[in-house]
């Protein structure tokens, strides 16, 4: 029963992880840019949710779309003013540029919000669902806040999936992901598509940040932690596809939960990064093993 409980914890975490990674994966896949800024975007989303809840009383789950919108605008601006200028440059330049931007944003947040850890404490707390109330043989519990966060996160991920699948903008993004040249020849405005993609990535980071604010403590320096998870998930699930991020997110969630049980929670990062390096060497296109387009 312990293993089933850990599996449940892993899946609850995994849904949220999918939302953390899907934007990162989208930007990496379409723009060919490793966006170090992604982790800081998530933290910014979490802070916005924290202040919305403590100052205005807006519930984080309701605030998630607003956080997504704010980050969308920010992402669009950053892409047009900075990232677009280095898009053609090699990996080294694009990665270092986003690192510089992350340094700036982290420092801004440090000055604005101070370094102490904060957390949204929902009032009243959402409590837990005890499955043994209904099925006496099942000795399992499900924390409601994690469940709700996971469901909302999956909602955002499916929204992105729908957008990429069924709208003109989405099809244009997928087309650019498949072949930039061909998409340009077909009349797709790549500059606009790149900006929109980056903005969408930022929006999902903002939503993820708002959704995880009731669960994880918020600190201006937590960005690298989420970024590391996004890396691992991308490589686990394969790059640039929504389903890949979903599979990778769930895989990482389950992996971390069991890793915490067997090795201790302090080794969870080491474990996931070791898996990352192994996968990079043996299966660089992810568990599913193919380049995905949506």
């Amino acid at each position, binding site marked *: 029963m312990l293993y089933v409980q850990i599996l449940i914890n892993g899946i609850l975490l995994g849904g949220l992880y999918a939302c953390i990674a899907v934007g990162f994966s989208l930007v990496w896949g379409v723009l060919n840019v490793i966006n170090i800024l992604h982790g800081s975007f998530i933290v910014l989303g979490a802070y916005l949710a924290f202040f919305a809840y403590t100052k205005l009383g807006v519930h984080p789950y309701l605030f998630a779309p607003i956080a997504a919108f704010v980050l969308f605008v920010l992402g669009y601006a950053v892409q047009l003013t900075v990232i677009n200028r280095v898009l053609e440059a090699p990996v080294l330049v694009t990665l270092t540029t986003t690192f510089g931007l992350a340094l700036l*944003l982290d420092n801004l947040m440090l000055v604005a919000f101070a370094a102490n850890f904060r957390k949204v404490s929902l009032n009243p707390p959402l409590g837990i669902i005890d499955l043994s109330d209904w099925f006496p043989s099942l000795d399992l519990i499900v924390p409601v806040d994690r469940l709700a966060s996971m469901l909302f996160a999956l909602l955002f991920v499916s929204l992105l999936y729908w957008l990429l699948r069924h709208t003109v903008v989405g099809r244009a993004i997928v087309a650019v992901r498949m072949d930039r040249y061909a998409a340009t020849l077909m009349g797709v405005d790549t500059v606009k598509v790149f900006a929109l993609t980056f903005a969408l990535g930022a929006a999902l980071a903002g939503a993820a940040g708002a959704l995880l604010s009731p669960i994880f403590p918020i600190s201006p320096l937590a960005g690298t932690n989420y970024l590391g998870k996004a890396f691992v998930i991308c490589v686990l699930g394969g790059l640039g596809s929504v389903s890949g991020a979903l599979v990778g997110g769930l895989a990482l969630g389950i992996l971390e939960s069991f890793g915490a049980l067997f090795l201790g929670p302090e080794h969870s990062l080491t474990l996931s990064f070791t898996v990352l390096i192994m996968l990079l060497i043996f299966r660089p296109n992810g568990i599913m093993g193919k380049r995905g387009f949506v």
Partner: protein
Amino acid sequence: MKRPLIAIAGLSVLALVVVILPFTVSNYLLRLTTIAFMYIALASSWNIVGGFTGYPSFATAAFFGIGAYASGILRTTGSLSLPVVWLAGATAATIFSLMVGPAILRLRGHYFAVASLVLAAVLREITNAATVLTGGGMGLNLPTAGVVNVDAQTRVYYVSMLIAAVLTVSLAALIWRSRLGWAMRCIEQNEDAAIVLGINTLATKILGFAVSAGTAGLVGAIYATWIGYIDPTDAFDDLLSVKPIIMAFIGGVGTVLGPVAGAIIFLVLEEFVWRNVLNFHAGILGIIIVALLVFMPGGLGSVGRGIVKLRNYWRASRRGEIRAAAPPAVPS
């Protein structure tokens, strides 16, 4: 004939200054110069992998940290002499690079960048967890060498960092002139073509990676004994991977003397920012990094082009047509 003469004259003036400095200036300036040597060594060390072979390596922090911790642990447990622990630090980093190199150097582009970036994070977590050996998050206090005499200590580390810097730059120059350097430049230009030419690309990359690791490890080892205290977030700081890249960019990636000039310029910038805006220095550093990469991607040599680009940018933004000034998005 003229250029070598100027270069020799410049180098001898520099050598003279370096020799005279310890007898004349204050400890603060000496300390700053020592940091300059450290940066020169790190930038040149990175340049052997990142510049010569063109592999986007973010592993400098990993090598630096291993060197620092190897020397730190040996120093606290075994009370060995300084040169021995420094060599041990360099060796430990080299061995580590020989272990991970054959695996991650098969990766290219983004995948190699991520794998090398992650190395430092893994090592940071491992040193954090191995509290018995490393002191964990509490860090490691290193015993000072002999009698505590600030003036003498400052000069000892001045000389040792100088040696590390000279060693790294000479190694880089040596590689640049050798067959190995030629093979590296081939890899940088076109790896597949290099394989066709009969170059053992993997061996070349591993060798370059090992030299880079050994020198960065040596610098880390000297740094640990110099500062006297290391902790995981400090020794495996991601900035240690990024700063050398920026320095090489300022001076010119893939040249021998570019990183040297870049390191000195970067240090002056950094010290100026540090002294004036302590609270926001990381943010300013971020702005400098972004501005450098966006406006002068070719280093100092491209200042002219950067200024033109900047002017076009301002004009366009005043007319409210930023997008028109943006370069056409062409796939790489």
